[in-house]
């Protein structure tokens, strides 16, 4: 008898089939990786196992018991533990009390804390490496320890099946190693472990088998190495080959006074310096990429250009200083940001979100603009009546870019458009950007940590590192001169 068995699982949301005829099983003492790009349906499968979603058809068996359609608490008590990606501990309680909570029986009459529970919680905390912080409040702990609390809660009731959602997101290399060991320990304890993540790479050394999904369907299954080499998986994840097609600076007419000039800009947050003597320029019609890791200062730079934060130094648009110009006027003047957090109106439909960008347009212009955008992002036309909150991450990103384009900007600033997206979705966005570059004279300033995404489109590249510009040049020279640290 397998600990977890899924057979012919299908889940439909209205007309959308999020998972179609999915079947797999996990034995005790085995780790199965469930992978797939954003919107592939892996979360739907996970929620169906947890009981958060009720499968449209098919079977979910835990230790041989059919649980499809059961409420979450019954499934959990039967022996399913979940390590959530985002932890929501009780903030007024200590780490120990949070773990003890997971051990508390689901009774209305448990009015006094049970000393045996506390002792057991202490033992679990020790196993996951939290014994040094038992009496601290969660808010005072680093991110990695919060994940450990989640892990402790998940194994507290000694479950036969453990689901782990994106275990390594946000962890450093060293923490990833420690966390891998903890997950391997679950296998050693005889639990069936299901790891849900974007790609195989992160779990290649950990998983015994990998099950790959794409747009709701199974595309491959087998040992990690085999799945990584699978042709379908490679096509879904890696897409086509990329080439660069940069134009030299002399090709732009406004060589003397570039459209946007940033000169010696400093930004401080309290005492920490987020930008240090940053200078760059963007010509009319040029595509400029600012490449840098998380925390390098990209978003700070874009917020300074948009007038959202105070800075020292000069930022000029077509030769005129933007100092003292309000953020609203800068945006209305045509410098528009598609922010990193996407900032969509999640309760409004796609159409309504686009209309928010069209407020300044004339009626005729609006329709024309919409047609052009639907041509650029056909996906959005299909989703027009859906609320933005129900879109996949990639579709939300397309909508964010489309809404910014709707305003007919002179300069569009794209802040990390690929954040959290699977390669196939990146590819779709990448193609849209390429068409934008080739068919319009729009000016683009792109911030990215994903170099392979940024380089093919860029005419020029700046590398931002620890608040400073450390390299500038055409993408063709990037690999040779600055690429070593980034690819």
């Amino acid at each position, binding site marked *: 008898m397998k600990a977890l068995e899924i057979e012919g699982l299908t889940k439909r949301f209205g007309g959308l089939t999020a998972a179609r005829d999915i079947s797999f099983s996990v034995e005790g003492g085995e780790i199965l990786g469930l992978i797939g790009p954003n919107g592939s349906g892996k979360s739907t499968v996970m929620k169906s196992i947890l009981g958060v979603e009720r499968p449209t058809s098919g079977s979910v068996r835990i230790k041989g018991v059919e649980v499809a359609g059961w409420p979450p*608490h019954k499934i*959990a008590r039967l022996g399913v533990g979940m390590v*959530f990606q985002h932890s929501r501990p*009780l903030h*007024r309680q200590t780490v120990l009390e949070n773990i003890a909570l997971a051990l508390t029986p689901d009774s209305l009459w448990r009015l006094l804390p049970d000393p045996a529970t506390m002792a057991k919680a202490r033992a679990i905390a020790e196993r996951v490496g939290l014994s040094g912080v038992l009496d601290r409040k969660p808010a005072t702990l680093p991110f990695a320890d919060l994940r450990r609390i989640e892990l402790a809660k998940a194994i507290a009731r000694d479950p036969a099946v453990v689901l782990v959602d994106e275990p390594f997101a946000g962890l450093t290399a060293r923490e990833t190693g420690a966390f891998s060991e903890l997950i391997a320990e679950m296998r050693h304890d005889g639990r069936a472990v299901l790891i849900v993540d974007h790609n195989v790479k992160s779990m290649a050394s950990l998983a015994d088998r990998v099950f790959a999904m794409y747009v709701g369907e199974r595309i491959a299954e087998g040992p990690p190495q085999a799945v990584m080499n699978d042709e379908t998986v490679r096509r879904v994840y890696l897409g086509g080959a990329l080439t660069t097609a940069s134009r030299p600076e002399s090709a732009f007419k406004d060589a003397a006074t570039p459209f946007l000039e940033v000169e010696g800009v400093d930004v401080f947050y309290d005492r920490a310096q987020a930008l240090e003597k940053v200078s760059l320029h963007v010509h009319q019609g040029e595509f400029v990429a600012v490449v840098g890791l998380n925390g390098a200062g990209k978003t700070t730079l874009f917020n300074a250009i948009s007038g959202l934060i105070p800075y020292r130094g000069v930022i000029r648009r077509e030769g005129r200083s933007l100092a003292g110009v309000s953020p609203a006027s800068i945006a209305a003047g045509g410098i528009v940001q598609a922010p990193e957090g996407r900032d969509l109106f999640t309760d409004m439909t796609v159409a309504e979100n686009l209309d928010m960008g069209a407020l300044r347009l004339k009626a005729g212009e609006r329709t024309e603009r919409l047609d052009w955008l639907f041509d650029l992002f056909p996906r959005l036309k299909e989703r027009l009546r859906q609320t933005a909150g129900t879109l996949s991450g990639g579709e939300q990103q397309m909508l964010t870019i489309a809404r910014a384009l709707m305003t007919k900007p002179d300069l569009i600033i794209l802040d990390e458009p690929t954040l959290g997206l699977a390669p196939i979705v990146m590819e779709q966005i990448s193609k849209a950007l390429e068409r934008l570059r080739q068919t319009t004279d729009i000016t683009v300033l792109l911030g990215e940590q994903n170099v392979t995404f940024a380089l093919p489109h860029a005419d020029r590249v700046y590398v931002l590192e620890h608040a400073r510009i450390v390299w500038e040049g055409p993408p063709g020279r990037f690999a040779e001169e600055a690429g070593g640290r980034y690819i």
Partner: protein
Amino acid sequence: MARAFGPLLIALVVAFCLAFLPLWVSGYILGLLTTAYYFGVFSMAWDLLFGFANEVNFGPTFLIGLGAYTAGILDSLYQPPIAVCVAAGALAAVLGGVVLALPALRVRGPYFGLTTLVAVLILQNFIVVFADLTGGEIGLTVPDVISVSDKVNYWIALGFMSFSGLVLYGLSRSPVGLILQASGQDAVQAGALGFNVVKHKLASFIVSAFFSGLAGALMVFYLGVASVGTFVDIAVGVQVIVGAVLGGRRTILGGALGAIFLIGAGELLRPLGDLSNFIVSAVALVVVLVFPGGLMGLLGGSREAA
């Protein structure tokens, strides 16, 4: 655990000191405080739902009104012992609470609050329509009161508030209180830990309804009159809610503090006429906006905040 019971100890010492107040102050002030103590129970019972179950009940007066009117009508019709009337009032509030909560807990987000609001309006209309039974808009005069002594009434209210505070606070800090808090914070994660979220929320609704109804029934036999304006009106519910939020969310005891503060401040400023309501409301607004931890947060420093 000693840490968690510090505030309770302080509160009990304060309540003990308040018990000697009748030796010093006038009957008028005692009467005012008696009402304030009942409101304190209303607010504490409401905080159990708002602070822990994370459900905004816009209809505290539905539960209070059920308790008050059931006790009052029973007394005016059959004159059983007052204890029977009070028990019946508490029971009616619990039953009404269950009938309201069962369907309401199925809907998500703001709809729960709207459902409870509608319940208040239905009760209010019922009272006005069945005026023969309920006294309608004029109010229902009950034949009995617990005592004519303002001192005795004061002590009953103080004792009742202390008892309610003790039970509600203890409950909120108990393991089952933590389960309730986890259910309110994130139903999916609580479910994944094996907790039946609906069961725990329903239980909290029953406890809240019990104390609201009991307090409402006792207050009827203090005032001698049940009226819509005292027990059911939306404005009364708003005062209960403001008292709880002003005192400090998720503190239970703050509810008593906030309710007493509201009634006390309203009285002190009474010479200002209509302006007094405005000032009390403005102060309440400022406290809520500037100190989200409420009065309890202010008293306890940053320890209890967040």
